[in-house]
């Protein structure tokens, strides 16, 4: 079903950004047709700067000509607006609060750990790795009851989508940092979730190319390590 003119959906994104990827995944899971505009973050389009003047970042969703920025705000907007298809948030307010809390934790805490692991070396990196391990443990314990026995695109949920978006980068982070952050023995639950999540076709469809991701993270790492220390 093509969305014509007024109701058109466009997404300004970047192929490797977990923030952008999670919006794409949500749109695919909901079956919402959209036009995708790849942004070069070193040379942002005038449209992007016009639609997100505050942060000048991707992702930005444009619906009926109106822009929405901030990935988690966009995901809630998508759920609020398109009532057909899988719901990203459950009905029950308490479950919703749990999903929002853990989504926020994944978004802020886990993402930050991973970026630090990529951008540091020596003691700083060791500390970041330890931090990432601890956070994974927290996620495993805290999110256990949020994951259904069988997960598919219809019950992926906001937290599942955000988790996938981070996992897209995860393996490449491990390669670049040279350390296994996720261990089937240390994190059996997460390991089983990852396996189940990557069996979902929409999730696989959006996954960025691993080698390309490693290349980008290596580039980011090299830049960070060469930069003069503040």
């Amino acid at each position, binding site marked *: 079903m093509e969305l014509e003119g007024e109701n058109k959906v466009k997404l300004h994104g970047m192929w490797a950004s977990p923030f952008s990827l999670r919006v794409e995944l949500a749109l695919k899971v909901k079956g919402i047709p959209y036009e995708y505009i790849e942004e070069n973050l070193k040379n942002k389009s005038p449209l992007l700067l016009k639609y997100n003047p505050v942060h000048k970042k991707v992702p930005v969703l444009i619906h009926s000509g109106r822009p929405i920025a901030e990935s988690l*705000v966009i995901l809630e*907007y998508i759920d609020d607006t398109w009532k057909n298809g899988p719901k990203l948030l459950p009905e029950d*307010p308490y479950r919703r*609060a749990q999903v*929002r*809390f853990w989504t926020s*934790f994944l978004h802020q805490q886990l993402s930050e750990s991973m970026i630090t692991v990529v951008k540091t070396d020596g003691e700083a990196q060791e500390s970041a790795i330890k931090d990432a391990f601890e956070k994974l443990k927290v996620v495993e314990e805290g999110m256990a009851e949020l994951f259904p026995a069988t997960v598919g695109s219809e019950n992926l949920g906001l937290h599942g989508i955000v988790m996938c978006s981070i996992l897209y980068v995860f393996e490449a982070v491990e390669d670049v940092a040279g350390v296994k952050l996720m261990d089937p023995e240390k994190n059996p639950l997460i390991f089983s979730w990852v396996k189940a999540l990557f069996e979902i076709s929409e999730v696989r469809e959006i996954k960025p190319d691993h080698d390309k991701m490693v290349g980008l993270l290596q580039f980011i790492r090299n830049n960070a390590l060469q930069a003069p220390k503040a």
Partner: protein
Amino acid sequence: MADVVKVFRTWSSPFALRVIWALQLKGVEYETIFEDITNKSPLLLQYNPTYKQVPVLVHNGKPILESLVILEYIEETWKENPLLPEDPYERATTRFWAKFGDDKLVPSVRGVLMTQGKEQEEGIPVVIETLKLIEEQLKGKKFFGGETIGFLDIALGWTANLMCVFEEVTGIKFLDAETFPLLSAWIENFSDVSVIKQNWPPRDKLVLKFQAAREKCLAEAATK
């Protein structure tokens, strides 16, 4: 079964105030448990093992954490006096600016409150620019929520009380009425709402608290 609502807070936490305001605006009865941050109760640690922080809302024994998550929960559970607009796009705009306040304004203010010298000087324009973006959201409106206070007023409400405290502690003026006519008017109007007025923590106690926090932070930075 009657609703049992408890709020874990400290006397000064601006994030906990958000929860108090929302509950009172909706006429929800609740019990307050005041926490001593230096000596957290076993109950708090049990309810919030992840962050070990206030506020925590406990509704019929179930804990909800993170003030903005709690606000959404309160909105969805008690339908009186809706705090969020109905239209999805307006809701998204509200959530965007609430997040902006927490992600940008809070750290930028902390960046001036807890520093000195050149670092502090460089932090001041960041606060001003951030406040200017927020000022724009008030164009043509009495409150961020329109005619009555809403979600975003509650999320940004800490500024109405604490910015002048921070100004006193640092000796720096952030919110002058000439540069920020709309925010200045909003601060007066917001502070005048009875639910808000009756819950402000004592100003002199806040000044002392933040003065001590600033000194501690500067001392720690000096030893690095």
